[in-house]
């Protein structure tokens, strides 16, 4: 059977899939976490919705979301380029 399976291509898909397919949602979640009220590990302060995240957290969140948007743009570019 091994001749029928392109293990190399399959492994590439699996690894790249894990990096992109699992990494993007994780980054998105991280961005949301950074944006939510800081210092509330147990959700105790989360009802104080007025607490604004600090500059560093907001910058971090921005980076996360920027990577996510970048990945989406890359995906569309891939489709347009006919790489499918």
């Amino acid at each position: 059977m091994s001749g029928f399976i392109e293990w190399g291509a399959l492994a590439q898909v699996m690894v790249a899939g894990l990096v992109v397919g699992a990494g993007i949602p994780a980054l998105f979640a991280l961005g949301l976490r950074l944006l939510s009220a800081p210092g509330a590990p147990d959700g105790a302060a989360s009802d104080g919705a007025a607490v604004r995240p600090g500059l560093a957290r907001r910058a971090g969140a921005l980076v996360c979301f920027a990577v996510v948007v970048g990945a989406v743009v890359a995906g569309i570019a891939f489709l347009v380029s006919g790489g499918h």
Partner: protein
Amino acid sequence: MTETLLLVLVVVTALAFDFTNGFHDTGNAMATSIATRALKPKAAVLLSAVLNMVGAFLSLAVAATIAKGLVDANVITLEVVFAGLVGGIVWNLLTWLWGLPSSSSHALVGGVIGSVLAAVGTSGVIWSGVVSKVLVPALAAPVVAIGVAATGTWLVARLTRNLPQDLTSRGFRWGQVGSASLVSLAHGTNDAQKSMGIILLALITGGAVPADSGVPFWVIISCAFFMALGTYLGGWRIIRTLGKGLVEIDTRQGMAAETSSAAVIMLSSHFGFSLSTTHVATGSILGSGVGMPGAKVRWGVAGRMLAAWGLTLPAAGLVGAACFWVGHGIGGFLGTTVVFALLVITSTAIWWASRRKPVDHTNVNEAWDEEKGADLEPVAATTGVAGPVSVAPVMAPEAASSSAVAIGAVHADISGSTKEALRA
């Protein structure tokens, strides 16, 4: 003259296949968004239809090949393509009736292989290609997709563990719709291309356009249109299975699942290991249940799906072969017309059978009841105002009484009294 009519029939059938393709695959992109109510059902299918249409125009790298590397290219005639298309359509419709997502491209490939077998025998099929390009990817796709989506879901669940729920569900609603849109776009680009390729091949074979011709504009427009139409009409039965049947899904899982689908579909074609959109999407949704702590996965439903995937090739092949024998046996234009008439009759019968237990945008999100086969019974809307029957189907009485505790006594009272009012 009959040559032209034959060509017209083939083109019409190819467009019909294109339609069932859109119809069958709406759920791949939109089932999760509909199940989590990130989008209203109608809005979701409209968005998906528009993106499928846009996707069809995005890239026009169409090759006039069908089942390349799977069958001997020299035996592909209009008759063979036609019988193959009919096989693909019939299997697509049957799996839709059963609410089972199965690969549209595998159905087409199966139909063509069947008709080639009927036409020239086993020598016309490249079996090693069938194994390495169809069977192995069909086994690999769910494994890869489950792995990726489960990892993504698990990471997301960990990262959002202590966050207030309104924030996560609001944020992930956006993420979910965005990632689902990308899947729709990719589907439009990939699958509309296939139908364009078939029609182009038919036109070249029939001598309507020169062999080195590009895709005529009317072919692009009509393929994009019929796929979008199919997508908009929505295979609600399949959406229901994918969104409610496999796992109970929230917006975080939905986003992780759709991102995994989009990434795996595009990466697999980039690395030359093409995987079926349907297999990947289904695997991703399963994976989002596997990776979510405490989520329940209905493996029975997943098993039925896998069985349908295994059956796709032989079943579509059988129909394709039968169509070729009938068409070829009668011969000529009359044979093709008879097969076409049979296709219309079969499709109508399947549609008619589906009306006995209709699933549409009003009941697509009803609770799933595996033991009772998710029976829905049409009754009046539970708004207190007696509406026309089948406005809002609810669970059959046995199920309704058992779930009444959860739903609340008030609701049960209303639906109970409405039912009595109806019977009176």
